[in-house]
């Protein structure tokens, strides 16, 4: 702006804004320090603080359990790694099924509606229990009755329902005129979906899907209910042997080390998208 005037140095307006910014930063810094101080000073004043510190923030137990918990966390990462791509594909199938317009294929559409209703409506942990214990109970032989397989399936079924709805919102956000234009150019319905609608739709919902990835990363821990000893279960074992909750704090920190960078990345993607739109 100033460059157009060619004036040397900042304008009065810019000086004012810089001052306001500095003042804002100072106040933010001051209030943050005040809150932190209050926390650091006040919490230890609580009568039970010593006991809480011993039970939740025990350095010795932290050091003893950290390697084992990190090892167990690898299992979380592995389960996440094989679930995520399957969810991405299966959810797309559901979303496309929900978008079919041909009357003859109405049952497909009905299936997609019922599927998303059911799997979004039941808590994940219940699905994990029911599928993880129920299906192997039918008499499957090893290794096909593995809790890893059926637990993962439970996560995949549930998360696909959510992700399918996200895809659908992306698909519906592509204006109907684009479909009409594509069809009038002679594209088949399949090609229209593949070359016109989906490339835009999927790109638009990347930030929303990042959120689902982060949620999935945490919900992998629910598989511990049907047997696998991942980080949450391992922390529970340590907790019961040591009668101390520090291992849970360690597990939480391990999760944060993964989810915070992922959350920041999602925020970045959303901000980028907003800039692109405006």
């Amino acid at each position, binding site marked *: 702006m100033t460059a157009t005037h060619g004036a040397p140095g900042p304008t009065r307006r810019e000086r004012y804004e810089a001052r306001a910014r500095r003042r804002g930063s100072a106040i933010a810094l001051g209030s943050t320090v005040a809150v932190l101080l209050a926390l650091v000073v006040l919490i230890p004043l609580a009568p039970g603080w010593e*006991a809480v510190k011993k*039970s939740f923030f025990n350095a010795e137990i932290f050091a003893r359990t950290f390697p084992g918990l990190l090892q167990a966390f690898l299992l979380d990462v592995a389960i996440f790694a094989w679930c995520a791509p399957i969810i991405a594909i299966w959810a797309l199938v559901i979303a496309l099924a929900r978008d079919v317009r041909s009357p003859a294929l109405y049952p497909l559409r009905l299936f997609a509606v019922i599927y998303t209703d059911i799997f979004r409506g039941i808590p994940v942990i219940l699905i994990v229990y029911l599928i993880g*214990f129920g299906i192997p109970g039918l008499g499957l032989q090893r290794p096909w009755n593995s809790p890893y397989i059926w637990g993962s399936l439970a996560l995949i079924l549930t998360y696909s329902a959510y992700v399918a709805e996200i895809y659908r919102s992306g698909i519906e956000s592509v204006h109907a005129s684009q479909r009409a234009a594509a069809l009038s150019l002679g594209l088949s319905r399949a090609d229209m979906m593949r070359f016109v609608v989906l490339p835009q739709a999927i790109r638009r919902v990347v930030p929303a899907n990042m959120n689902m990835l982060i949620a999935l990363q945490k919900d992998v821990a629910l598989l511990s*209910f049907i047997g696998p000893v991942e980080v949450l279960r391992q922390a529970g074992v340590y907790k019961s042997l040591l*009668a*101390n909750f520090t291992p849970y704090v360690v597990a939480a920190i391990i999760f944060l080390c993964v989810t915070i960078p992922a959350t920041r990345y999602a925020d970045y993607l959303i901000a980028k998208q907003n800039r692109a739109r405006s």
Partner: protein
Amino acid sequence: MRLMTLSAALTLAAGPALAAKDCAAGKTITDGTLTIATGNPAYYPWVMDDAPESGEGFEAAVAYAMAERMGFEAENVTWTRTSFDESIQPGAKNFDVNLQQFSITEDREKVVDFSSPYYSAAMAVLVRQPVVENGAEPTLESLKALKWGAVATTTAVPMLTGLVDPEDDPLLYNDNPDVIEAMKSNQIDAAIFDLPTALYLSAVVLEDGVVLGQFPADRTENPDRFGMLMEEGNPLRDCVNAALDEMAQDGTLAQIEAKWLSETTGVPVIE
């Protein structure tokens, strides 16, 4: 806290008239009442029908016998329920003593107090008939090759990894019914429980359940002894120990054990 000081003051005022039986006076969370916690649910044969008030079942019977020696009539005993986590969380407890097959360990003792042991538990291996037919035997060699499961919050887990050291990683569960479910669906071959629980599960819950063998209670490494759990520094502990020690000496504990946990003989010992 204020209530306790008040009741302590009252006790002092009552003066030397109090007999030794009143060791617990003023030391319970509710004056004149002993509040005992058990699991939710409490399992057979420790508590019958999940009703500790009946005094039926090993732990319920021990609790009432102990309360009586501490000067609490049966009507002055109230029961409450806690999970394992609630019983070890920091802060004031809502029970005087808590008994739900807590194994006494050094690490746990750093956070809570335990009474003298009231039972020494042998650990036992529970399997289903088909596993036995496939050649499973009560030897460490044979046990190593099985697929194992256990309840995650028990001392069975270190026993499993330390003593049996199976080839496959064990699967761990929240509670007994989940372990049984995993056995039924053939996800695990064998599970480890304390012997009375294993006998109950094989007799009642798991249709084709077999107790394959036991690790004797008096094993030198890591013996499993059940103690009553109390808040750390609970002044009641001396009274509880005095009552339990008396019960151990005059044979009361052995009597109660014989009544509720009698069938534990005849299970092969694992070498």
